[in-house]
């Protein structure tokens, strides 16, 4: 219906669908999820600063950091690479995962922020099941992170950071979806546990930096093994390492099965934790603190 031919509908002459308690239908589920994704994308588009910084951050690493370390850090031939690759090429998958890490945590922060300003309350009074609302929120976050990741890949392409074949851009998609889901679910779980994240700096210090640096994003694991065995163990258990490797192999049309298992498993665990924490009967919201904590 267009804006023009609207008839002023008085709620007093309610259309029949106003009165009975409508059961939630399958079509309604789609409408609901669509609406959540739509809003998240709108917010993203409106926050140009967020998009820009999401893009500039990895590009700074790519253009400056990688260029500076190109000479220092030689990467020998390790799978999936079949030739020597430039350091820029090596760290590109790690930077994509970093984009998703930031995005996942930022949307988790927006959950916390939403909870404060009350938009979260609006989401939670929807008649759809709580788990479905959280999954929709997650899907919305992944959609936004895909936009960011491909924008980065496009710029990187012109910087000669490309996979072997253009097919890589397609084969990386499922990996990006999975890693986005994992990092988004991690953010969701965190948002339910932390009542208040004072600022993004503490998240950077306690989550992003440790996860990012103790991973294979910037250096291959065998190099870390040479330097420090304990650190190597930490890195190889870090789920972020597996997100990076999953993306790295997928860009070359290959599947790293261990990483696939770790990313799926850890993502599912985080999602279950978040669903549990937000569940009205089992959840933490009702037990911890008063209404102020959950406002």
């Amino acid at each position, binding site marked *: 219906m267009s804006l023009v031919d609207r008839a002023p509908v008085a709620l007093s002459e309610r259309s029949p669908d106003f009165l009975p308690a409508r059961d939630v239908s399958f079509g309604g589920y789609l409408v609901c999820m669509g609406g959540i994704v739509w809003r998240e994308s709108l917010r993203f588009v409106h926050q140009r600063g967020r998009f820009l910084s999401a893009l500039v951050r990895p590009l700074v690493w790519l253009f400056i950091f990688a260029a500076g370390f190109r000479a220092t850090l030689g990467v020998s031939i390790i799978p999936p690479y079949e030739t020597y690759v430039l350091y820029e090429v090596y760290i590109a998958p790690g930077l994509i995962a970093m984009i998703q890490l930031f995005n996942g945590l930022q949307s988790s922060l927006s959950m916390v922020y939403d909870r404060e*300003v009350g938009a979260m*309350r609006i989401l939670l009074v929807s008649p759809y099941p709580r788990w479905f609302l959280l999954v929709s929120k997650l899907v919305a976050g992944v959609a936004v992170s895909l936009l960011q990741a491909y924008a980065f890949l496009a710029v990187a392409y012109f910087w000669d950071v490309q996979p072997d074949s253009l097919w890589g851009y397609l084969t990386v998609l499922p990996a990006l979806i999975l890693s986005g889901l994992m990092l988004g679910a991690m953010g969701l779980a965190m948002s339910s546990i932390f009542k208040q994240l004072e600022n993004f700096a503490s998240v950077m210090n306690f989550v992003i930096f440790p996860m990012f640096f103790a991973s294979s994003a910037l250096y291959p694991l065998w190099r870390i093994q040479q330097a420090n065995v304990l650190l190597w163990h930490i890195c190889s258990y870090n789920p972020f390492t597996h997100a990076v490797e999953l993306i790295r192999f997928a860009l070359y049309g290959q599947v790293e099965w261990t990483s696939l298992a770790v990313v799926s498993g850890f993502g599912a665990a985080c999602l279950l934790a978040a669903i549990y924490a937000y569940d009205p009967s089992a959840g933490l*919201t009702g037990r911890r603190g008063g209404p102020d904590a959950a406002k």
Partner: protein
Amino acid sequence: MSEIAAETRAPALRVSGVTHAFGAKKALDDVSLTAPSGAFTALLGLNGAGKTTLFSLITRLYENRSGAIAVLGHDVRQQPSRALSRLGVVFQSRTLDLELSVLQNLLYHAALHGIGRSEARRRSLAVLERVGLAARAKEKVRALSGGQMRRVEIARALLHGPGLLLLDEPTVGLDIGSRRAILDEVRRLIDDDGIGVLWATHLVDEIEAADRVVVLHKGRVLLEGRIDDLRARGGSEDVGTAFMAAVAETERPNTAAERKTDTAA
């Protein structure tokens, strides 16, 4: 349809025997109250009386562990999605997306209730028309005044045709003109549509003679009745004085209310 008949018979909201504690602190203690359809029920209480906790339970942010809460006869624990689909809420804190337009905010809310796009647009414009803001549909929420934002929130709460409208101190921070306008708007809704309204407030001058009043104090219901009952209870013609007297009464030992706690404990 018997479904509709059942809904019409049930009160818009019935809360019975609800107790809720955060740790050792009881926020609500055996609270029972009714908000009938087609009536304005004022939930009167000072800050910390338990109004927000009660709203959190009704909106199912978390579940009541004792007692029962039913919206138009639908228990919020047994039939959460039915109960929530019959419920419209205006929260105390602002819950609009400032970056988005008025219409976008409404469309998002409609989607959360599973209302498809064209129907959502029709309903959005209809409810905006009602609160006199149809002309501002395309504007960003940021451009609106506090009173206008509240009216958009009321419009949003009506979007899915609820039978019960909850408002948690909706006039806090608004000037006297906007307060008046919002009260009038909500009272018109009751007259026109016959929905039930539960209006939490600590401002006694928002209550009219015909309204129902529920006084909540420290998690307990002190009184449920008409404003005259409150006057009688507090022993004063001035509602504010009567309210404060009724509240102060519970602080003295050996009053009826106090004896009740003793037996409960």
